[in-house]
């Protein structure tokens, strides 16, 4: 049984190297998590509360879209689910094999060739050497990079790099897939092929968590949504309800500002 149980999770980021001047600006800003200063006058530390008492449960078949403004905590939440950040308080319990596709494929090295990177990243993502070897032709074919795969990837355009990362990352068979939006890109033809592969991958995946600013992307891929605002979950439920709430809040904020 694949599941994720997030229980009263709070994540605080200590910010090092923030001067008190820049702090003053930070306190006045309106986006992002709650920023506070702690401690007596000396030893003051700047702390950003990126997630505040977040709790929800995901089960088999849940395809969750994370919705919210920049800095609302979407990427932090994905990283907490991926086990990158251990919450300051609360617990995350995950049953199932997780595959995180956040910025790029992990372990990528610009001076290595495409083939070498497929092997390194594949191993980082938990494939055995044999498994990588078995899947290599499929990955190579899907990336459509042809002979470029023999060249160091620093010679690739950013679109080509995305193709490579996407091809590697979607070759694994995870129970739980965590996606940050950057991963889906490339030219139009690749995008449609990527979409096909992505849908096939999502079919195989038990739980999907996708963070994106694109309402269209989330609506095509997700059945439920989580709306985050300043690190708090303000709405959780069917995707239509969550977007309705998001728009209502946006309109409210706009009328207050205007």
């Amino acid at each position, binding site marked *: 049984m694949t599941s994720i*149980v997030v*229980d*009263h999770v*709070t994540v*605080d*980021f*200590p910010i*090092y190297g923030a001067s008190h001047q820049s702090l003053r600006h930070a306190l006045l800003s309106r986006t992002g998590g709650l920023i506070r200063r*702690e*401690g*007596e006058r000396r*030893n003051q*530390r700047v*702390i950003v509360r990126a997630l505040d*008492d977040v709790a929800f449960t995901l089960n088999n078949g849940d395809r969750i879209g994370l919705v919210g403004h920049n800095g609302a905590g979407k990427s932090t939440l994905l*990283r907490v689910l*991926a*086990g*990158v*950040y*251990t919450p*300051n*308080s*609360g*617990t995350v*319990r995950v049953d199932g094999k*997780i595959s*995180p596709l*956040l*910025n*790029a494929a*992990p*372990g*990528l*090295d610009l*001076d*290595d060739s495409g083939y*070498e990177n497929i*092997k*390194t990243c594949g*191993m*980082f*993502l938990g494939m*055995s*050497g044999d498994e990588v070897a078995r899947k290599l032709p499929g990955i190579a074919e899907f990336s459509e990079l042809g002979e470029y795969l023999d060249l160091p990837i620093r010679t690739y355009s950013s679109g080509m790099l995305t193709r490579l990362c996407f091809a590697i990352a979607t070759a694994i068979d995870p129970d739980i897939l965590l996606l940050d939006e950057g991963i889906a890109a490339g030219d139009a033809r690749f995008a449609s092929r990527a979409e096909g592969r992505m849908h096939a991958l999502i079919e195989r995946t038990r739980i999907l968590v996708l963070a994106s600013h694109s309402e269209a992307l989330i609506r095509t891929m997700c059945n439920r949504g989580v709306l985050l605002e300043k690190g708090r979950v303000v709405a959780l439920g069917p995707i239509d309800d969550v977007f309705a709430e998001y728009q209502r809040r946006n309109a409210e904020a706009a009328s207050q500002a205007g």
Partner: protein
Amino acid sequence: MATEATPVKTRRRWKLFSLEPQYGAAWNDLVGGLYEWRIWGRLGWQEIKRRYRRTALGPFWATASLGMFIGGMVFIWAPLFRTNVASYLPFLGAGLVVWSLVNSLICEGCTVYANGGNVITQMNFPYSILNYVAVWRNIIVFFHNVLIVVAINIALSIKVTIYTLLVVPGLFLVAVNCAWMTVVLGIVGARYRDIPPLVGNIMQVMMFVTPVFWAAGQLPPEAQPFLKLNFLLHLIEVLRAPMLGERPMLISYAVTLLAAVGGWAFAFVFFAHFRRRIAYWL
């Protein structure tokens, strides 16, 4: 599975570590990472291969530079110490080759996690893989540099003795000791960015304070006990002496063995306390 949510306390407290240790996670990381030898073995090789690309000598550039340094220094230091080049050169060569292994492991140790940020902030994996990569890669570089010692030993017909075999346990002791130091320094270096340059400076001084250019026996007897307080002396000794076909001091084995056990115990506890904070510092 609900645990009581305890708000994080950021006030300074009279307690060495304010975090609850996670011994299980630390064990899984440090020991589990060792089992991932396919990954760290590959990453270490890849980094060496990268150095070979587009250069004729690759990692041998480091060997060449070390060789030239030794070749230059020996003609100044041998007369300064009133010894002849033939007897001083093997000592200096072996000493500097071993020193450069220890030195680069300690200096690189400070940045293992800071430079691994690309992976650490992407996924949950045994961070210790990064430590093992650093150790493994530096051992490969050591095997490049060791050619200097081989060349000197052949040229000056230094005898291969039964003690030469002690190179194997010597290298093992150096690797095991440096490995725990990269864990501790890696954590401190990820949090405090002053550590890498600070350690670099200290190591530069240590190169002259530790008997690398000069032999311990050259100091007066009353200085000997103080000399033995230097951990790096013993770490160098267990590998340098066998390379010269000599038996290392027994105290050096005692010290390095004890340090390996004690150091790893400390590194384990330290890692258990701070592992989960590393991602926050990057």
